[in-house]
């Protein structure tokens, strides 16, 4: 695996940062998580912390060096995080459960798998364009999809921050899974909280990151978004990876180096000369015997005639 990765979380204009991010990787698998603890409920940052911690812990246990089933891993990890938050609530006798959004992505064998609950997003960017992204679990998204309001209206809609799925809520989370997505060399996967995508559209981020060094370009994107967010801007968090392997080349190069030299020799050998056993004679008697043998086999194995 070869990749460049960058993560950062900023407080913005808020009094505390309730966003949490993490990434971890084994030899052959990579996990990235962004969780956005929800204000309005207490201890949002605790819920977010529990979510990223739970996923990171199980990744460290299970990625040896690959995960058996990345989707199952994501499902289990997010469901466990949800229950861990509920347990925390009970243990500390909180009046209201802390809640968090969560988006998590696993990459292994050059295939990306992701899952999310809430409105933290994942973008897959290729050549400066968005080729895939998660759909927010928000009322506003449903309204836009049903054609009730336009994208432009959505940006200023008063309900734009209301979501119907998150970890820690008394109703179980609705976790949405991606398809298995093969990655190309240079693909960028970016996970972020709404503090970033609320200020800068995915398309703009994709253009900004195209061909750039993530370690420099991502902080610049955050600067811009923070500036736009102003004095009361939301927390902004991001984990971004540029994938340096290719689904196609990886598969071929790994194998061709193993088999090529050996095979080239043997192929050439086969073209020279003739097989010494080529002249082996088959006498008339042997032919008769062979035919007899085949006929008796046909007799023996054929189904009885009607």
């Amino acid at each position, binding site marked *: 695996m070869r990749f460049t990765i960058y993560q950062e979380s900023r407080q913005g204009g808020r009094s505390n940062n309730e966003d949490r991010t993490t990434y971890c990787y084994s030899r052959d698998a990579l996990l990235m998580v962004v969780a956005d603890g*929800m*204000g*309005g409920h207490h201890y949002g940052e605790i819920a977010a912390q529990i979510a990223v911690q739970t996923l990171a812990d199980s990744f460290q246990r299970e990625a040896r060096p690959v995960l058996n089933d990345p*989707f199952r891993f994501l*499902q289990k990890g997010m469901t466990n995080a949800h229950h861990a938050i509920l347990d925390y609530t009970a243990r500390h006798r909180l009046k209201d459960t802390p*809640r968090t959004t969560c988006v998590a992505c696993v990459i292994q064998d050059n295939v990306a798998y992701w899952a999310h609950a809430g409105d933290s997003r994942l973008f897959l960017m290729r050549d400066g364009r968005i080729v895939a992204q998660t759909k927010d679990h928000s*009322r506003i998204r449903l309204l836009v999809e049903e054609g009730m309001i336009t994208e432009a209206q959505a940006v200023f809609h*008063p309900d734009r*921050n*209301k*979501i*119907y*799925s*998150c970890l820690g809520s008394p*109703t*179980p989370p*609705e*976790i949405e*899974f991606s*398809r*298995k997505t*093969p990655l190309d060399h240079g693909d960028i996967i970016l996970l972020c909280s709404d503090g970033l995508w609320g200020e800068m559209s995915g398309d703009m981020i994709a253009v900004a990151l195209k061909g750039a060094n993530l370690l420099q370009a991502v902080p610049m994107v955050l600067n811009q978004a923070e500036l736009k967010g102003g004095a*009361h801007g*939301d927390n902004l968090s991001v984990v971004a990876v540029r994938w340096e392997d290719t*689904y*196609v*080349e990886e*598969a*071929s*190069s790994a*194998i*061709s180096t193993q*088999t*090529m030299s*050996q*095979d080239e020799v*043997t*192929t050439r*050998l*086969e073209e020279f000369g003739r*097989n*010494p*056993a*080529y*002249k*082996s*004679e*088959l006498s008339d008697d042997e*032919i*008769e015997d*062979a*035919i007899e*043998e*085949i*006929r008796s*086999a*046909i007799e023996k*194995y*054929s*189904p009885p005639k009607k």
Partner: protein
Amino acid sequence: MAQQANQALPNGHLLEEYIIDRQLSLGGFSIVYLATDPEGRQVAIKEYLPNSLALRSKGEIKPVITSEHLGAFRYGMKCFFEEGRALARLSHPNVIRVLNFFRANDTVYMVMEYEHGRTLQEFIQKHQGHISERFIRGVFTRLLNGLREVHSNKLLHLDLKPSNIYLRGDNTPVLIDFGAARQTLLTDQPILKPMYTPGFASPEHYGNRKDLGPWSDIYSVGASMYACLAGVAPLAADTRMKKDTLPPAMMRWDGQYSDRLLEIIDWCLNLNHLYRPQSVFALQKALVETITPPRPKANPNWLGRFVEKLRKPI
């Protein structure tokens, strides 16, 4: 010596107890005829007649085999017998049945069942890239039943390709042409001429063939499925080993077929034989099992799904 194509036996010719109706196909190694047996059933008869070693001129019945070529001719006959032996022991609805075997005209003949239908190759050419997943799964799942039977008899087909997969009227597949079949237990046997078809032959076919195994037929199955999607044969394995430019099915038909099917095709087409399904059973299992990605039940209460989130003080 200039090579001429062999002449087929004339229509209406009486060959032992069979009447030749017409020639079905002409290969480098043999001619296949459609014939009628004494009970009036149609059968296919395969005549051993290697182009380079035996020549039948127009109007002749017996081919001319020069003494110089007799050794090689007889040696090739051994391979033909092997095909006969292989098939005679198999009795399976998805494998062609041998009905008789006899010697005539200084060569040998194999009589096989014949049914109306067409080869998968013809089907692919007709439907260029418009073959449904349902059809592919249906045909290959049943075809693998036949191939499993072949492998369980310690045989390998070694020349699996769409033109060797025959579809009956109801689209049930039949494996035909075991000309390259080999008993795996007798691997020290010399090979007259490596028989394989570029695009469908596995990388092991090209080397010294010591790595041939069920996984080699499985490569060919994958290549045949790939051909169903592409309309043409995939890139030959020897070319792929120098530089693999074959786009994985996962990328090429993303979204047009189920991920699982595309994944299975790519799995079969792994250049390293150890990374492919190791048995037909494993492949079949993957092909029939339905995988539904985990998806928690949606909360039935539409309004209940709405959790208030008041993050920004407005």
